[in-house]
């Protein structure tokens, strides 16, 4: 344990900037992704302004250069090129630089070693390299706003040939920077995935069998496998598109017999595992927090694990449902419809098991529990609205309309982001040693919950009435003009929603110094991270813990408190002998 001994003499720069401690790297990922969450949110606000008040001067518009805002006497009006860049960059930054690092980067790094009883990741230096590749990728993505021609403007899916040749959008360098930035982020994610999988397989504490791992770690393990196998496909496709852009190859350029559909197949073959990468860790975090809040074991632990594994397997054979109307072979459409309908089943199982968890519980409505319940209720809506798209004839009508935008925001904002709020608030003491303020946490939750629904629920309605996606100025279409009041209503609600997030930001920042001091186990939870001081020292565990039971032994009859730490030895010899850590794990 030499790493543990000499941690204190390490120079400041090695301890905080180029640290190889998984907890410090988690905090680095947290700060980076929260910054990008704010940037993504601001981009969304500019989009909402343009959709709510098309071709009217945007307040603060003159701050932006002329390539983005047309200087007219009345004020600065947004140009369509800039709107397309906003659409693309809002999607890309939120998915790749906010939600993914928050779920996989932060909770992966923070929870995996602590929850399986390891002193650190299997390859600490590789873990540090993972952050120090992701951060420059983010800077590169932001810098693409400032290059000539503006940022990439072909959607976060960057369909060819619009993205394959600059003549169609006037964006040359911006698109190439987008491609290079995502490729570098791909290397960062791969480095992380290799680390997570090796750590979970090989470094579990004695007694921590596969079915005694918390569901958060299970979800992160399966997510790491999805990342490991999906991201290289994206890297390959991005590199081919970059070659089309620069050295004149014709993978996706129909002019010289390339195949635009090949890009869509490659992108979505990565794309669908990607959207499950964005939701599985959120499901894992929610299971942990719900069990803790309800003081009751997770209902059907084995079923939950099997559901996560089923989602992982099925996520590889459903990608066609993004391409029903793309000119793909209709016979394939039928196959993908059936597989897509089947993949709805594991999600349903998880929802029912969450309900089972809080059934007959002793529900403590602390802030993480509120956010977790928010996740479950919003994920129900998001999951159910997905069934509409699975049925191909209905998808003919609602594909590429705001119904799809509503669905994806219900699962990403209502789903992942609520779980991220729950996760940050729940493990905040473990990261910073202090608790976030409960009162302000609740105020923020209820305001966000209400405003969030006011913003995204009407999107189902304008989507059903035919409002297409990524439209710069809906009033150009006569049949969309009656929907303009709803667009304005959504814009104003969206501004309020973002304003409310300031409460969480302040609560987050102030609590670092002013928050109530947290002991080892403020939430009275069972998993191993709550058996070490907050924040845990370098090397986490003084003594390698021995695990005797599962993570969800809440309200167990043989112990009087309503929680039972995983490494607490059984009450007496006479009790059932502790599970010997069998040499061959089952």
């Amino acid at each position, binding site marked *: 344990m030499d790493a543990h001994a000499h941690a204190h003499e390490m120079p400041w720069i090695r301890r905080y900037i180029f640290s190889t401690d998984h907890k410090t790297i988690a905090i680095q990922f947290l700060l980076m992704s929260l910054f990008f969450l704010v940037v993504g949110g601001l981009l969304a606000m500019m989009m909402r302004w343009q959709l709510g008040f098309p071709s009217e001067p945007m307040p603060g518009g003159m701050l932006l250069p002329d390539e983005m805002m047309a200087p007219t006497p009345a004020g600065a009006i947004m*140009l*369509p090129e800039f709107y397309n860049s906003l659409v693309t960059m809002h999607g890309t930054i939120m998915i790749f630089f906010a939600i993914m690092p928050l779920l996989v980067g932060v909770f992966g790094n923070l929870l995996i070693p602590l929850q399986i009883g390891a002193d650190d990741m299997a390859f600490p230096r590789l873990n540090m390299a993972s952050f120090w590749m992701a951060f420059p990728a983010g800077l590169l993505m932001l810098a693409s706003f400032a*290059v000539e021609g503006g940022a990439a403007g072909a959607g976060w899916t960057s369909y060819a040939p619009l993205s394959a040749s600059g003549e169609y959008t006037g964006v040359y360098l911006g698109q190439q920077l987008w491609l290079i930035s995502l490729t570098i982020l791909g290397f960062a994610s791969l480095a992380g995935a290799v680390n997570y999988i090796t750590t979970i397989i090989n470094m579990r504490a004695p007694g921590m069998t596969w079915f005694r791992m918390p569901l958060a770690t299970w979800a992160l393990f399966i997510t790491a496998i999805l990342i490991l196998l999906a991201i290289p496909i994206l890297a390959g496709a991005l590199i081919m598109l970059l070659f089309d852009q620069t050295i004149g190859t014709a993978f996706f350029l129909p002019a010289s017999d390339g195949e635009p559909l090949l890009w869509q197949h490659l992108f979505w073959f990565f794309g669908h595992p990607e959207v499950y990468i964005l939701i599985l860790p959120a499901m894992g975090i929610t299971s942990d927090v719900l069990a803790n809040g309800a003081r009751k074991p997770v209902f059907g632990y084995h079923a939950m694990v099997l559901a996560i594994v089923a989602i992982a397997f099925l996520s590889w054979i459903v990608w066609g449902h993004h391409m029903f109307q793309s000119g793909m072979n209709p016979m394939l459409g039928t196959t993908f419809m059936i597989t897509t309908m089947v993949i709805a089943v594991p999600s349903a199982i998880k929802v029912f098991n969450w309900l089972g968890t809080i059934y007959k519980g002793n529900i403590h409505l602390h802030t993480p529990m509120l956010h977790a319940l928010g996740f479950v209720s919003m994920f129900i809506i998001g999951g159910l609205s997905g069934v509409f798209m699975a049925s191909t004839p209905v998808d003919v009508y609602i594909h590429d309309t705001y119904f799809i935008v509503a669905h994806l925001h219900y699962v990403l904002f209502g789903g992942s982001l609520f779980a991220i709020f729950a996760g940050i608030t729940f493990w905040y003491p473990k990261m910073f040693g202090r608790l976030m303020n409960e009162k302000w946490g609740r105020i923020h939750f209820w305001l966000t919950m209400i405003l969030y629904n006011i913003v995204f629920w009407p999107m189902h309605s304008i989507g059903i009435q035919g409002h297409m996606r990524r439209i710069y100025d809906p009033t150009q279409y006569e049949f969309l003009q009656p929907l303009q009041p709803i667009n304005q209503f959504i814009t104003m609600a969206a501004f309020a929603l973002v304003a409310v997030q300031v409460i969480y930001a302040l609560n987050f920042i102030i609590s670092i110094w002013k928050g109530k001091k947290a002991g080892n186990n403020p939430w009275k939870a069972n998993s191993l991270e709550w058996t070490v001081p907050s924040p845990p020292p370098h090397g986490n565990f003084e003594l390698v813990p021995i695990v005797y039971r599962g993570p969800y032994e809440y309200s167990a009859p043989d112990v009087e408190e309503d929680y039972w730490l995983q490494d607490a030895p059984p009450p007496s010899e006479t009790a059932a002998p502790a599970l010997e850590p069998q040499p061959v794990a089952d």
Partner: protein
Amino acid sequence: MRDLFGCGRAMLMATAAVFATACGGGGGEAGGGMEQEAAGEEMASPVDMATAGGIHAMVMFEGMAPEMDAIDMASEPNCAARYTDTPMAEEVVVGGGGGLANVFVYVREGLDAGMSFPTPGGAVVMDQVGCRYVPRVVGVQAGQDLTFRNSDGLPHNINASPSENRGFNISQPVNMDTNRNFPLAEVMVPVRCDVHGWMSAYVGVLDHPFHGVTDMEGGADLGMLPPGDYVVEAWHERYGTQTASVTVTTGETAMVSFSFSEAMAANAVVPMGEPIDPHGPGAHTLAPEAH
């Protein structure tokens, strides 16, 4: 000043330090334009007015002017509303006296290689009125500002596809001006609007100011040149190009005339985007008469 301020405003964007280098590249175009203007003020035109002579071109059209199709503006109602009678295509415009309009006439060879001409400060305006480019053909000097003005208030996009210069594909959703300039000489950069297929215009970019576009009577003035032999070329979007040689003597306006006819349309070679270098080899030897 505005471009510098524009670049400063961009600094306020929430991008990181990398932005500074990228901004250098981004502002290049604006920065480039600025230096040239500064240079322009000091250097007066190198042509010695005392000994200069003018060139006036006359372009006539023989035979019946071809019948132009009507433009179907049904898909853009608020443009169609501006016309009382149905708008006609403007590919071939023949004046009352048989003069051919919209012909771009310029000095192709014969200028002294050493002379370099300052970029005029003023901007040439190409307006979009009633879903049409006014003027349809225009000449600018390399580096000179070309202002695209959207006076229709409805979305137009300007898709310039030169081969020598870098093309651009900008849109103008509302009444606004956008400035662009072409750093390299190129005769006839085609410009079109993708939203309205019938809109097209041509921009001639030269290193010198001796160019003009014929009016309804077919006349165009090429400005004052030092005396000497020159080759003048006339370019029309449907009938291709013709060259003629002319001698400029001090104090007089030399006349040069061209004539186009419908027969030429069949095998006309219309250079669009080909590079033309007025300081061609053997500046003072006359190029063979090419009709």
